């Protein structure tokens, strides 16, 4: 039935000698019931991040990490489930649990950004080393799944848009790999059309959405890649419920389950220090502009990673775990603006520009659709003036987040990844809620309970979370209005319809919820 691809990461363990595991043969990956993927089983308290006092006397110098711990963390691989612990130095239980999830987030970030051809080798990776998640065998862009004309997507196939084909072929002949990014409106206009993000060199930021094999297989198996199939009787009364990551505590074996990603890229120019970004050479197929004629061009650009959402469905957290990272130089925080303490430069903020001239978090002047001839430069005003987004992080990172970031930046200090920070992890915090499973007879595992009332999100902690590059204009702390991964994604629905088929109970309890993802509404 479901083919599974290994993410092929290994782990080290305090009790066992670290063993290098070769990339498992895909054919042998077929046989799983319990799964024999080696999950990262590290817990926060096993490592320096857990056991010692978090604050050293100098807040800018993290507690030193010894070499073997560092090595273990860098090679430990992908966690299959969240890290649930109430142990830790904080007084409030929730603070310790938050640290556990934040630690899980860093391990996940490291695992997914490890080199695709050497998943334990992040320590020796270069800024332009292709990461696990950039490998088409591991993750697939959404637009390659939601194909037009009910075409069934194939995992192995990458769609090269017509506009890029010549250039792609030429680079291939030159043995130069290129990432292909296909743009639609959501690739430059943030969710619910809240705005485009323009960097200090007048370029659009670019967004992309990807899914892993487990998500892909579920979608294809149920025909969710096509709108017509979603609406058809075949899927009437289907309760969309993606596979959940899980592990066996004794063997450390399991399956990661469904993972989805959203990334933001900055176009790197000569004025940017490329080596501060994880970067790739890319062919970018520009999006259609309703005001222009002809085909949008395909342009070649160096893209630097500036933001990354990682969302992971797990057995203990069927409402998913929501992680977000940013490049460290993206934006100042609100407290920096209030204290007028700035770095020399930021990706999306100009410290030299006054608030009156550069209003903070303002959306760009319309129109927002990129002009073909401008090649992803934002249009200039009539007098030639450029608009650059002036973005501030409205919710300061917590002290605990900053401390953990410093710990991991020191662990990653020899790599480009020291330039990345975790923004936070949002996770469903009510255990009585997450532990409840659907009681409808016959629903398959993981039996996520979407009927839960009054709160099917199970009390997200923290209540709000926003990435300054991906939810730029919806930052804040106002319920429903301000960015909260789970509050928003909890509203996601598909095109599924109720039909006369199915049991009376299925009929009555029909839902068109789409398990916290907006991907299904992109089916054509």
């Amino acid at each position, binding site marked *: 039935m479901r083919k599974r691809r290994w993410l092929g990461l290994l782990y080290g363990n305090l009790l066992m000698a670290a063993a290098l595991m070769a990339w498992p043969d895909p054919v042998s990956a077929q046989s799983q019931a319990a799964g024999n993927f080696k999950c990262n089983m590290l817990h926060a308290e096993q490592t320096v991040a857990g056991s010692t006092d978090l604050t050293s006397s100098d807040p800018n110098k993290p507690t030193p990490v010894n070499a073997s711990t560092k090595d273990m963390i860098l090679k430990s691989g992908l966690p299959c489930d969240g890290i649930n612990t109430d142990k830790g130095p*904080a007084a409030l239980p929730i603070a310790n649990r938050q640290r556990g999830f934040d630690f899980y987030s860093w391990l996940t970030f490291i695992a997914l950004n490890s080199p695709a051809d050497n998943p334990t080798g992040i320590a020796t990776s270069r800024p332009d080393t292709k990461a696990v998640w950039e490998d088409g065998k591991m993750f697939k862009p959404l637009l390659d799944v939601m194909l037009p004309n009910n075409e069934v997507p194939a995992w192995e196939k990458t769609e090269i848009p017509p506009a890029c084909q010549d250039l792609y072929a030429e680079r291939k002949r030159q043995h130069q790999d290129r990432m292909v990014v296909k743009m639609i409106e959501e690739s430059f206009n943030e969710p619910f059309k809240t705005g485009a993000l323009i960097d200090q060199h007048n370029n659009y930021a670019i967004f992309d959405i990807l899914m892993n094999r487990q998500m892909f297989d579920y979608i294809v198996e149920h025909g969710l890649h096509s709108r017509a199939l979603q609406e058809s009787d075949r899927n009437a009364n289907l309760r969309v419920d993606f596979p959940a990551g899980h592990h066996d505590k004794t063997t450390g074996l399991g399956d990661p389950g469904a993972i989805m990603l959203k990334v933001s890229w900055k176009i790197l120019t000569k004025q940017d220090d490329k080596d501060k970004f994880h970067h790739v050479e890319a062919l970018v197929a520009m999006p259609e502009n309703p005001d222009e004629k002809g085909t949008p061009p395909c342009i070649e650009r160096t893209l630097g990673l500036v933001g990354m959402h990682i969302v992971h469905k797990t057995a203990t957290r069927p409402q998913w775990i929501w992680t977000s990272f940013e490049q460290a130089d993206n934006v100042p925080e609100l407290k920096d603006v209030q204290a007028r303490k700035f770095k020399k430069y930021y990706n999306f903020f100009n410290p030299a520009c006054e608030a009156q001239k550069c209003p903070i978090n303002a959306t760009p002047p*319309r129109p927002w659709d990129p002009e073909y001839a401008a090649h992803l430069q934002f249009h200039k005003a009539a007098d030639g003036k450029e608009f650059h987004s002036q973005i501030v992080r409205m*919710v300061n990172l917590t002290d605990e987040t900053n401390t953990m970031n410093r710990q991991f930046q020191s662990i990653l200090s020899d790599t480009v990844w020291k330039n990345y920070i975790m923004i936070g992890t949002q996770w469903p915090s009510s*255990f*009585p809620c997450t532990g409840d499973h659907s009681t409808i007879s016959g629903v398959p595992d993981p039996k996520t309970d979407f009927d839960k009332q009054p709160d*099917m999100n199970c009390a997200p902690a*923290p209540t709000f979370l926003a990435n300054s590059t991906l939810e730029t204009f919806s930052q804040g*702390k106002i319920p429903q209005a301000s960015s909260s991964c789970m509050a928003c994604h909890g509203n996601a629905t598909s095109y599924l319809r109720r039909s006369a088929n199915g049991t009376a109970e299925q009929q009555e309890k029909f839902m068109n919820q789409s398990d916290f993802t907006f991907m299904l509404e992109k089916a054509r």
Partner: protein
Amino acid sequence: MDESKHRDNGSPAQDATDDHHVTAISRRTVLAGAAATAALSFAVEARAETPPPLAAAPNLDAFLNLSAALTGIAKKMLAPDTDSLGMGKTYFDFVAARKLPALATLLQVAKDANLQVPPPPGGIIAQADVDHLAQAIAAKGDEAKFLARSIVLLWYLGAWYEPADLKAVAQDPKHLFGYTVVSPKAYTQGWLWRVAQAHPMGYSDMQFGYWTRAPEPIGDFIEFRSKGKGA
């Protein structure tokens, strides 16, 4: 093109309403400064006077017991072990900031009542205990009696009704009075709506179509049933 609407005054707004969540604060930060706490509580708007430093934990616990008994909601729902919202502390600080002597009276009455919170499933304090508590409160006079009611309304609606107004309208039904919402967060965490097996108007965490079915039983909304496993 249009003139995009910026925040009027050019400086990033929202700070005044930054309902700083309690979750990430360790005891160290809490004890480190009354000032820090004062700053936090200041962020809770509505006629903010500088509140007193955080009272010791026993007072907060007494407040939670009192609240659980009077509201009829399970204590572990008002203040879960893993609490992402911290409403208990928010409301306690809010009432404390009002500098009403009756608060100390109520806390003492609650401590003296030695309220028993039953274990799950349920976790709701028995009516007999509630009635004793209510009598003990009433015996302490009008200020305590009406403050107790204001506290229930605080939990129920996320809004503050002055005890003096409650007293006035009890005497004259035509007395007109309003309320002050503690914060957007408090409004969305109002328990009254859950008592009605619904949700606050303007804040739903449920799925499309839920309203075409009867709701889950009231126990799902106000009891602590601990069906799920912990970690």
